[in-house]
């Protein structure tokens, strides 16, 4: 990936905007689903799918691909949007989210959608699977890496800490745990529900490297993911500080938009705001 030009950074911002629009349209069309997390993670997913990951949308099972395990499965609309834009399946198919017979299940399933990598939803289980994968890769001296996207709220699950211990013990430096640190969960603020701070220190105490960045700053995400390549001997945690609902002002930082059905007009207002942002971004891009 290396250092990216201002133009490429702007292109990724435009892409992230497009992913956000897909999220709104998918969830609105489905009549249910999650918006806050996916919108907050859009910049990270744009960077992952269009710069950071070694992958081939035309060959989802390519042996040497990097594996991206989505642990907080409820945020799958952002993964589906990124996969569609990357060419795993037609963008049209996004409309089938949560419908009977769809490959785009309400929570993702490995066996239904090539490239989904795992089945997830019950929180706290992704890092364990990612650590198992990373361990297998080390056994076979494979070069591919394992990325695990997690939410901050799911760090309350005991299983996640079991996986942290295992990864630390086995020095799985081919494993990157990305944390969507958006400070919200279903019932409110994470620090009210069950405080996670001091967050960084917990990972460090479990023998992990820790990096932090502004997850809604594409350039910062690019640099942070690049930096993970230069860390060795321990697994890596990348805390991305994200604004839940990012890009749609009435959703930003409001935990109720973790997931709630749109009322009439709300989705349209969100799309309108995102389209205005896109027009601005494209104007900026044209000048670069």
């Amino acid at each position, binding site marked *: 990936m290396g250092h990216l030009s201002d133009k490429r950074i702007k292109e990724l911002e435009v892409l992230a905007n497009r992913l956000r629009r897909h999220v709104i349209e998918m969830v609105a069309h489905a009549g249910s689903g999650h918006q806050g997390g996916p919108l907050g993670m859009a910049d990270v997913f744009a960077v992952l799918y269009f710069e950071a990951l070694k992958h081939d949308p035309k060959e989802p099972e390519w042996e040497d691909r990097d*594996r991206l*395990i989505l642990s907080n499965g409820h945020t799958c609309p952002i993964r589906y949007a990124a996969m569609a834009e990357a060419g795993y399946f037609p963008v049209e198919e996004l409309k089938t989210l949560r419908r009977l017979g769809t490959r785009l299940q309400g929570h993702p*399933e*490995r*066996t239904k959608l090539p490239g989904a*990598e*795992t*089945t997830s*939803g*019950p929180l706290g*289980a992704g890092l*364990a*699977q*990612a*650590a*198992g*994968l*990373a*361990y*297998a*890769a080390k*056994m*076979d001296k494979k070069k591919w890496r394992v990325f695990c996207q997690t939410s901050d709220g799911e760090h309350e699950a*005991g*299983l996640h800490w*079991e*996986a942290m*211990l*295992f990864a630390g013990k086995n020095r799985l430096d081919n494993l990157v745990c990305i944390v969507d640190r958006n400070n919200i969960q279903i019932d409110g603020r994470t620090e009210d529900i069950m405080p996670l701070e001091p967050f960084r220190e917990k990972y460090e105490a479990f023998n992990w490297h820790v990096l932090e960045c502004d997850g809604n700053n594409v350039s910062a995400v690019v640099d942070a993911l690049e930096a993970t390549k230069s860390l060795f001997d321990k697994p890596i945690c990348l805390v991305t500080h994200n604004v839940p609902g990012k890009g749609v002002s009435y959703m930003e930082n409001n935990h109720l938009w973790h997931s709630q059905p749109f009322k009439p007009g709300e989705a349209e207002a969100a799309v309108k705001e995102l389209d205005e942002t896109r027009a601005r971004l494209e104007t900026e891009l044209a000048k670069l």
Partner: protein
Amino acid sequence: MIRKEARLVENLLDPKIPQKPTRDGYGLGVVDAAEKDPNIVVVCADLTESTRNLDFKKRFPDRFIQVGVHEQFLAAGAAGLAMGGKIPFITSYAMFCPGRAWEQVRTNICLNETNVKIVGSHAGVSVGPDGATHQAIEDIAIMRPIPNITIVAPCDAVEARKAVVAAARWEGPVYLRFAREKTPVFTTDDSPFEIGKAATFRSGKDVAIVACGSLVHNALLAAEELAEEGLDVMVVNMHTVKPLDEKAVLHAAEACGAIVTVEEHQITGGLGGAVAECLAKTHPTIQEFVGVPNAFGESGAPTELIRHFGMDVPAIKKAVKKAHKRKTKA
């Protein structure tokens, strides 16, 4: 009479028949399987010796993965190992895996269709003095409703070894149920074993016992004693609880007209339930259930507990006679 095709030992009824725990069969079988397939790994949750992993660890140290007292991770991490091309045998006491780790087994292993073999040792009340906390007698019931799981409860250490080798070759998740306590070794290397195919050990026409696990031997003893009392009892070794060999169940029901199921497990949701579900839809048949009657286990000597909970030879005989009486009345 005992079927020659079953190739059982000749001293089947000898009270001094050699005994071994089925978990010993696992320990041998997993080494057999690992010699043939380099992708097999063993994942252990701080119970290396008691789950009989010492030999494997010695032979294949690089393929032995110690995860500590992390049963949820044991299951979920193994799903990841399997997605990375390994065939993990995950080992603990049945109470903890699948017991504690049920949701990870269901979602990460089974729904995810990963090739993980779940080895649950210390199943049943015959765990003995450790008491109810460690006696898994609900494990078959929690595993049976999972759509793509295969469940095997071998009848002795020799069959256990074969079951492990067969499970390694079987594509998809398998739950292997083993016991702590030593029990009679009465099958031989020549006894047929195939996952999903029941073996009729004794032919008979009055009542059919369908059993799994080490109580199959008690079932045979009961049948031999009942023969002297004039009852001709069939004994079917239903080592694979899922997928159930429905053909064999139906054959037993049609041939005998009365069934007794025998298992070291809660009566609710176990082999007895599977047989009843099968027969209710195909050939409704009188059935008696030998197993733990809706109770938790407790401390005691294994044989005492088997007697206490009504799974010893006299209890099986009683159930057979009751089934026969009901059949005759009907």
